[in-house]
């Protein structure tokens, strides 16, 4: 399966790249879910609700886009949710104490990136398996955040800052524009740059990547740092949307973010997957959760459904790969 997904060949009716095919399947699945929800709930196919779905998907996609790069290298970042927590709380403090949303945003992005950098250094420098290193990081961040917040809530941010999360331009939520930008940048980075291609290569076969001269360690550090930075982006948008920060902000986001990546067809074993696939994965998961909301299913069922979908997605990936 080629990682550098060539666009569908122009010759009629022949070769379509496997990556494109995988995304088409998933888009079809998303379409089916939409069709089903339209029939089940009259509130689904309203412009307001669809924009709401897109806005929720955008938060998930910020996290999932960074995670996609990590998973492409065959790793995992379990700390993204806890990273949102710390980044959002520190950013909130910065905004409250200096009154400058710009500075707060920088604090949020900086905290997220530094955490990611620490993850990258643990994985490459200390050679700790990524899921263990980031799992330890999860609880370190969780502890620091709760200790720092001591049960407090920081709320009430400047109206201009809140626009980032809840504002509209031309009737479309601002986070959706951000999502489009991140998606485009992510696709270009992964498919059209040397670094992106090196990430695919080292995920597909780390040994041959090293032998062909790819600086594996530095690319891994880059990938974990980007994942942390995207958690920082998510924390800012989340903060602006909620207009308040608590210790547990973002805690429930790790599972859906990982699920979105895997639903999107990125393989846990590295080297296979696309940024656009992750976008569709985030969309599918958000549609399902939104549908459960519209059908007034108790919100406690959401982690159950997300967990089942997560496992099913990995199983599907394994089953199709075994066949091919």
């Amino acid at each position: 399966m080629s990682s550098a997904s060539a666009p569908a060949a122009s010759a009629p009716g022949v070769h379509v790249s496997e990556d494109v095919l995988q995304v088409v399947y998933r888009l079809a699945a998303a379409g089916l879910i939409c069709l089903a929800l339209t029939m089940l709930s009259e509130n689904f196919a309203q412009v307001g609700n669809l924009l709401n779905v897109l806005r929720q998907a955008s938060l998930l996609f910020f996290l999932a886009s960074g995670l996609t790069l990590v998973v492409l290298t065959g790793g995992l970042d379990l700390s993204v949710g806890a990273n949102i927590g710390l980044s959002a709380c520190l950013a909130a403090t910065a905004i409250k104490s200096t009154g400058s949303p710009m500075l707060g945003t920088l604090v949020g992005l900086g905290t997220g990136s530094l955490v990611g950098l620490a993850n990258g250094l643990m994985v490459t420098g200390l050679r700790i398996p990524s899921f263990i290193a980031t799992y330890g990081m999860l609880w370190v961040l969780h502890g620091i955040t709760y200790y720092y917040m001591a049960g407090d809530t920081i709320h009430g941010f400047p109206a201009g800052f809140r626009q980032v999360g809840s504002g509209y331009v031309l009737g479309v939520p601002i986070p959706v524009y951000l999502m489009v930008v991140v998606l485009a940048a992510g696709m270009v980075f992964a498919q059209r740059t040397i670094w992106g291609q090196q990430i695919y290569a080292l995920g597909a076969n780390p040994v041959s990547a090293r032998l062909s001269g790819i600086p594996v360690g530095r690319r891994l550090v880059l990938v974990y740092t980007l994942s942390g930075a995207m958690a920082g982006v998510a924390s800012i948008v989340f903060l602006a949307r909620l207009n308040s920060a608590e210790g547990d902000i973002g805690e429930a986001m790790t599972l859906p973010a990982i699920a979105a990546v895997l639903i999107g067809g990125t393989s846990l074993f590295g080297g296979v997957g696309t940024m656009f696939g992750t976008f569709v994965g985030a969309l599918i998961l958000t549609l399902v959760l939104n549908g459960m909301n519209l059908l007034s299913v108790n919100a406690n069922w959401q982690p159950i459904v997300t967990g089942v979908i997560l496992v099913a997605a990995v199983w599907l990936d394994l089953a199709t790969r075994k066949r091919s």
Partner: protein
Amino acid sequence: MSEAVLAGPAAERPHPGLAWRAKTVPGVAVVLGLLIGLFAVFAPGFASPGNVSNILVQSTILLLLALPMTLVIMTEGLDLSMGAVVTVASVALALTVVSTQSLGLGLGVGLLVGAAFGLANGALVAGLSIPPFVATLGTLGVAQGLALVLSDGQSVVGIPRHVRELYSGSLLGLPIPVLIAAAAYLAFHVLLYWTRFGTYVVALGGNRDALTLAGVRWKRVLVGVYVLCGAMAGLAALLMTARINAGHPTAAIGLEFDAIAAAALGGTSFDRGNGWIFGTLLGVIAVGVLRNGLNLMAVPSSAQVACIGLLVILALFIDGLRSRRA
């Protein structure tokens, strides 16, 4: 530690003997010694007999979880769902004891719920070959949600007195939870070192193709390890429910981290399948001492979690150094 010991014939034994294991003693023993020395000086009331028994009683639930976690890690797996499974089992058994007043029935329900989740984990990992940390992350979500659905987000209260005494009572002058934990420790020691199952568990951390060629049905063993994990989570849920006098829908969330930390501190390695039951016991006590000492120094629980996290990263770093030297 003498090199002669390491080079001795014990190194060739299929069951790593005590002498061979001796090289992992210093890590966890030194950490434990340092912690005890530190808290004896800085934490008021740490070195009193009452507090020592406190630490032991408080470590029992963790030991019940860390023992099977050690086995899972030895198979190069992980069970992230354990805390959530304790929670859902605790809610289920609390609902049972409150309505039936029967301890036996409650225990049965707890074990059953735990074992069911363990079976699901085992089936996903062994049957469908899904990487353990993702499979158990999925069941974590399911267990967490189910605990909330079953309890409707509320604590299940009204646990009868005879159930509560399981945690607070004593038998022959010894606290009952300590007796239960001691029995569990002995059982795991026997299981790992004296039975065929244990031998296969040790072997699962190595070459699985070799096991297949040798005709070992190792997938069953792997499922068994995860079922054991779930069942022990059910047993721990009983002690947990007796301790907090309720079935609480988020009480045990994150407890698997302490269990993984204890096993990692005890020298169980994530990438080579080496594990050591006695090391895990020391690791559990080290985590218990750390939490107790920080409590006495009035450090909030959230900061304790961060300390344990740093301790684990340190332990893994040392583990990594060891493996490179070896």
